[in-house]
């Protein structure tokens, strides 16, 4: 075997694998930063209004929610906040599961559990915002 043959062999590991390349992880990384900046305003604003302003949590009841959701502005605020926060949190937990669950089976099922419960919460929250009835009861 000549030296030339050995050098040619080095090419193999660098060659592009057959597996389809995806930019999914890049998009997820960008999403965390973009959604994070939006959530800083939406969530801190929400916490300030609900917990600190005008008596804080003590004044919250059904009538308070009815008053807020009579406005499309607060409906839109809560809807965007729900979707961004849930997707941001789900992707965060996906990263943590990938980091710490070492067995393939464990990782797979933990992520399935995560995705199913997150989808349920997102759909439930969306349904509640869109179908809220102030005259209920």
């Amino acid at each position, binding site marked *: 075997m000549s030296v030339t043959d050995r050098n040619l062999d080095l090419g193999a590991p660098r060659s592009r694998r057959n597996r389809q390349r995806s930019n999914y992880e890049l998009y997820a990384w960008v999403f965390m*930063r973009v959604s994070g900046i939006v959530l800083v305003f939406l969530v*801190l604003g929400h916490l300030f209004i609900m917990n600190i302003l005008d008596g804080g949590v003590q004044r*919250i009841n059904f009538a308070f929610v009815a008053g807020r959701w009579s406005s499309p502005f607060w409906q839109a605020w809560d809807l965007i906040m729900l979707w961004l926060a849930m997707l941001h949190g789900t992707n965060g937990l996906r990263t943590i599961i990938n980091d710490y669950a070492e067995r393939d089976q464990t990782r797979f099922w933990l992520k399935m559990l995560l995705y199913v419960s997150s989808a349920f*919460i997102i759909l439930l929250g969306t349904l*509640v915002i869109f179908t*809220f009835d102030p005259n*209920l009861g």
Partner: protein
Amino acid sequence: MATTPVGTLYRGGEGMWSWVAQRITGIAVFFFLYVHVLDTALVRVSPEAYDLVIATYKTPLVNLLEVGLVGAVLYHALNGLRVIAVDFWSRGPRYQRQMLWGIVAVWVLVMVPGTYFMLKHTVEALFGTTS
């Protein structure tokens, strides 16, 4: 099963611990969010059911937990902005330590009055009016 790693990649210091805290606060806030969407969904059941569950948020113990929640969210938000600065600002990595102490200072400055207003009613209810 992977073999037990020898040694560790964790390097300690502000960089590692701010990252650990980002993960812990993120998990805590995310699990609260699940619960919070579920309790808010009770507005579709009945006003009484919603008001009954929301009443627990007004009890002294849960009120104290809310201060913890706000503190966790605020740290996660401020440190998230610091991470973005480290990623995108050319001098971000060089000043990451200073930025951490900067956000800790902002956190304290916001949490002191924030805690006062969040616990005002609870303290008055437990120990009588202070004013």
